[in-house]
């Protein structure tokens, strides 16, 4: 068990390798109840979120979810989050470590009459992720749920809110269910899927799969000192919508162009480049690794690095610090692996 934003989470249930491969080949079940869940309700809810977040929620509509960023006035990223537009308001799912800070920030900007509730303790959240997730989820009422769709249904006989979203690059579902019933839903999904190879998957598999898919991790790949363009998340910033916090700074950044950018690195087996490892090119330091791990699925270590813009191109060779020596790293196209998520998609990138 590791401490993760005050929650005890398993790094692995059995083996990171087995869990990682289960997610890529069949499906893995993640307990992501550590993530913060806020409910935003009231007439002003949409305008409130539009003024706080960089993406344009009016482009989705009820029954859809959207990846989004919350930035400060300087355009630094306070958190990355997903907004789920439900029948009776919005759910906002934030990173565990930022939950209290995010809630205070949101409360500080909330207009009178807005409903803003932290539902993290009452509403559990689990995710079934993998190419066979749709077939292996015991659910009703979810037929033809599109990629990033969100609707009420029943999972293992229990009322749930379900979205076709995830953090692994695979097709899959995130399932919001009353905390008192989640144990039964969890067991039921695992019991039903065991014969096909469904495994419970821990933080290790979650980190490896999200990194292969080049999905950014707050606190590693970005924080308040990083702007969305540097993080490669400029597509979530809609400068053409009405005013939102950080817009002026972000418009300037976009016009000037970012000074740093995230690139993908591949190294030889054994050369795992860790968070903060120095990256250099032609003898000059150009940046640092933000995330790195060994990919059991790809068979070699992979890393994301934040480097000076235009310093590296795909196919170039860079040097990265591994255990105090310079290891050779190849710059590769992101994502490192494209899973089943987009092929299950009927909706475009939101």
């Amino acid at each position, binding site marked *: 068990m590791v401490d993760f934003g005050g929650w005890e989470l398993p790094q692995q249930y059995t083996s990171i390798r087995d869990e990682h491969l289960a997610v890529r080949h069949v499906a893995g079940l993640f307990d992501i109840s550590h993530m913060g869940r806020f409910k935003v309700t009231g007439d002003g809810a949409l305008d409130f979120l539009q003024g706080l977040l960089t993406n344009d929620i009016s482009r989705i509509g009820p029954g859809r979810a959207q990846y989004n960023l919350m930035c400060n006035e300087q355009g630094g990223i306070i958190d990355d989050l997903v907004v789920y537009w439900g029948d009776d308001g919005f759910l906002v799912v934030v990173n565990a470590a930022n939950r209290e800070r995010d809630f205070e920030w949101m409360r500080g900007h909330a207009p009178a009459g807005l409903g803003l509730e932290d539902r993290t303790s009452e509403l559990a959240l689990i995710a079934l992720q993998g190419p066979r997730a749709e077939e292996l989820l015991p659910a009703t009422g979810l037929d033809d749920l599109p990629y990033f769709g969100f609707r009420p249904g029943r999972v293992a006989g229990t009322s749930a809110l379900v979205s076709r979203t995830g953090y692994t690059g695979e097709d899959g579902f995130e399932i919001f269910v009353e905390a008192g019933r989640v144990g039964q839903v969890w067991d039921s999904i695992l019991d039903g899927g065991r014969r096909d190879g469904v495994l419970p998957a821990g933080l*290790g598999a979650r980190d490896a799969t999200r990194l292969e898919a080049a999905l950014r991790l707050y606190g590693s790949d970005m924080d308040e000192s990083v702007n969305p363009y540097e993080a490669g998340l400029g597509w979530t910033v809609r400068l053409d919508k009405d005013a939102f916090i950080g817009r002026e700074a972000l418009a300037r950044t976009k016009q000037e162009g970012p000074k740093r950018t995230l690139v993908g690195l591949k190294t030889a087996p*054994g050369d*795992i480049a860790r968070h903060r490892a120095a990256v250099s090119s032609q003898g000059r330091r150009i940046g640092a690794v933000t995330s790195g791990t060994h990919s*059991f699925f790809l068979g070699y270590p992979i890393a994301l690095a934040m480097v000076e813009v235009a310093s590296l191109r795909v196919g170039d060779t860079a040097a990265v610090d591994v255990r105090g020596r310079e290891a050779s790293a190849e710059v590769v196209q992101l994502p490192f692996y494209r899973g089943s998520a987009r092929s299950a998609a009927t909706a475009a990138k939101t």
Partner: protein
Amino acid sequence: MAGRLYTKTHEWLSADGKSVTVGITDFAQAQLGDVVFLELPNPGRKLEAGESFGVVESVKAASDLYAPVAGRVTEVNDKLAAKPELINSDPYGDGWILKLELSGEMPKDTMDEAAYKAFAEPQA
């Protein structure tokens, strides 16, 4: 062969005369998680007691390995290059790491299994 002894840095050692086999403990492999790579010395290298002789890379972190006794490396477990996961699946058997020819005394600060358990368990 005498019983297995354990160090505070989570190596185990087992002596057969002057030949000492070294590995990492079951507790250590569980804490490290899936091992993906080992950097190990070549046979012939002389190690001081407590000297760092290699690195074990798991998905989570790189951790140093320390020689529990002074001695010369006589053999390195070649299987680990292709199958580092043996450290996880069989830490006291096929996952042994190297053999040393003892050059001095056996250390006095090792623990037997019961003492090691009492030492390691509160850290879990």
